[in-house]
């Protein structure tokens, strides 16, 4: 009996570590970062999960590029030695405790103090059920971020991405996965022998649209990753169907459909099943993305012979060219404030992530990479996640728009690509 108990414990630990499939590396800069200390959390009670909350919060804050969060051995016993932290040039100190209240209810307490004024900036008690320790750590990270920066954090959110692994015989397996915003808790929601691409979260976070080749042609599918209900079936179109992008209302998707070989952007309403044409041009129109207010779409088109980005105002039906620098600009995505577009810009032979100010047309190239792809903003607009290559291997990269700090998410075996960042948890 005792033996089997040990075995169970061992396998729990094992599966937990096997869960952390995405490895996280911060590879640049602590420039202009807010120095703070987050002390280890006091844990009162028995917790099955082996989770270091303070570390998760530190890692979260550091990944954002805004913070230089450190730990300390100095535990808080009733009073805080503010002088000590002032000497060490820390601007804020965070500490907290987790207390088991009943079998399934726990309380998290969090305190944020300003070292200079020695005043509490924030304190909060949050109740949560078992199994939510990591989620609590992300929720607390969001609050600290807001208290210290006055902006929303984007930690209690999810990523989706596609992994590709190859067997010894050379056959590929594609997986559509979702994970927490820090790459933990990866779960496979679709597994296929056929390519999967372009996953996209609905704004309410409950649905994922993606492209699958399981029927030997590119088709758009919509699934509910959190519910065991049937995927939504879109009507069958003649040519390719691809590049799904959710309207903020969550009821319709813009997608590229090839009718009689002509690739244009259409709007498909999942409720009324109506299909409405949004662009009409004999050239390629694809990679549509809705502005946050749903009033316009940005898209890629080669209508002038070059691959460039255009914005269509859906209220006036007017189409304006958005990119003027370079001969290849593609895959636009709106920033959450609607003022900028992240896109892929060709420089010489390289394809790099760039940021376009829509009003001023200023284009800023953000990386020195060779083949960036698939940009996606964090829901607070502070970071962009994108796919790129490192040592001939597909990885995900997150860039902080605060100080260009780069965080890499890699997978030991196989490649990872096509990231998408969910909206805030409800």
């Amino acid at each position, binding site marked *: 009996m005792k033996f089997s108990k040990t075995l169970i414990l061992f396998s729990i630990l094992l599966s937990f570590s096997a869960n952390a499939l995405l490895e996280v590396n911060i590879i640049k800069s602590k420039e202009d970062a807010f120095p703070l200390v987050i002390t280890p959390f006091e844990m009162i009670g028995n917790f099955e999960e082996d989770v270091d909350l303070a570390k998760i919060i530190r890692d979260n804050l550091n990944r954002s590029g805004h913070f230089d969060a450190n730990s300390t051995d100095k535990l*808080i016993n*009733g*009073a805080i030695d503010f002088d000590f932290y002032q000497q060490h040039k820390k601007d*804020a100190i965070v500490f907290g405790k987790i207390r088991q209240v009943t079998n399934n209810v726990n*309380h998290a*307490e969090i305190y944020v103090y*300003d070292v*200079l*004024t020695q005043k*509490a*900036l*924030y*304190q*909060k*008690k*949050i*109740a*949560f*059920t078992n*199994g*939510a320790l990591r989620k609590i750590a992300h929720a607390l990270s969001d609050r600290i971020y807001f208290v210290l*920066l006055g902006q929303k954090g984007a930690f209690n959110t999810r990523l989706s991405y596609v992994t590709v692994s190859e067997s010894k015989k050379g056959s590929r397996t594609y997986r559509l996965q979702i994970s927490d915003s820090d790459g933990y808790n990866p*779960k496979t*929601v*679709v*597994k296929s*022998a056929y*390519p999967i*691409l*372009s996953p996209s979260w609905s704004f309410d976070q409950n649905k994922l649209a993606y*492209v*699958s*080749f*399981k*029927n*030997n*042609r*590119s088709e758009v599918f919509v*699934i509910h*990753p*959190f*519910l*065991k209900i049937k*995927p939504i079936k879109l009507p069958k179109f003649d*040519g*390719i169907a*691809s590049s799904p992008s959710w309207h903020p209302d969550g009821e319709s998707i813009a997608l*590229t459909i090839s009718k009689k*070989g002509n*690739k244009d952007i259409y709007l498909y309403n999942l409720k009324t099943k109506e299909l409405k044409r949004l662009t009409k041009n004999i050239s*390629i129109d694809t*990679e549509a993305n809705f502005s946050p207010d749903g009033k316009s779409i940005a898209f890629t088109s080669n209508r002038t012979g070059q691959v460039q980005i255009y914005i269509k105002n859906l209220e006036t039906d007017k189409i304006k060219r958005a990119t003027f620098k370079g001969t290849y600009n*593609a*895959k636009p995505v709106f920033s959450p404030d609607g003022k900028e577009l992240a896109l*892929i810009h060709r420089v010489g032979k390289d*394809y790099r992530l760039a940021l376009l100010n829509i009003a001023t047309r200023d284009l800023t190239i953000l990386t020195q990479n060779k*083949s960036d792809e*698939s940009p996606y903003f964090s829901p607070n607009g502070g970071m962009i996640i994108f796919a790129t*290559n490192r040592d001939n291997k597909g990885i995900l990269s997150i860039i902080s728009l605060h100080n260009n700090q780069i965080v890499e998410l890699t997978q030991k075996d196989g490649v990872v690509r096509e990231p998408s960042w969910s909206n805030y948890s*409800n």
Partner: protein
Amino acid sequence: MSKKILLITSVIFLSSCATTNIQELGDKFLDLINPSDAPAEVADLSEQVLVLDGESGGFTEEELEILSNDELIELAKEKGLEDILIVDADGNLQNRDEVIKALAESEALKESATQQLETLSDDALVEIAEAKGIDSITISEELENLSNDELIQIAKEKGMEDILDLDADGNLLNRDAVIKALTDSLIILDEDGNLQNRDELVEALVEGAAETKSAVAELEKVGGSFVLYFAYDDTEIDEAATRVIIEHANFMQNNPSVRLRLEGHADERGTREYNLALGENRALSVKEVLGLYNLEDRVVVVSYGEERPVAIEHNEEAWEKNRRVEFVYY
């Protein structure tokens, strides 16, 4: 932006809770968080990794060797290989070895055609069956649960009256045979569009698929090319490519039952979705030339964009190999 200013505004904003001594927090700070939106394990999407079964269901050469000449003649006739039989005046088989080889080859061809069809999803299988002119019916219940009159009606609608054995009063005498005949020769879908008779459909398509394979093998033997290459971000068909397409047009005219799938591909440079569109345009420009021979109805176009490279390196040489259109017959 100065973090000091931010700090101070935060201090003002949150001054109501300011204190330097740590004390237990009351319930006025209480929020509730549940882990209830944890993802379902794996959504069942009827999409899975398919593993091919290497075992052959047909005759191998060894198995054919132990058959008598008469049995071989019988088998060859059954498999539609009557033409290759050489028999003397007394009906004795003269070319036993040749017949065994031909039978084994035909079995191998069918086996590989079956395997290929088995890897297809239901939707892809239905698409091929429809292209091959197989009729489909949508029924709310299984055929077994339909009344005789309903079965008679379906058979008549689908032009299959001759399978019906009716008595003088019009009653169906061969219900089981009719159900089998309908299952073997139609695409049967339920009201959600799900395929009901996958195994029978594969069976119905195997022969045609094997014939296509053998015709394609002939074209391969005479050095036919099945891939065309393109320049960067380009869909143009040059003279050499036109000659290849004309060869295929001739092939299709000589083999009226074959159908062509043009698979367009792009290299890895640029964005995936744009490349998907580009791949389709490449395949479409090949189809356009075939259209000059009035073959467009037998051609479908698909694009894999940059998802199916033949060369996985990241250099000009690999990119050249990946910017292509492949001719796939079925």
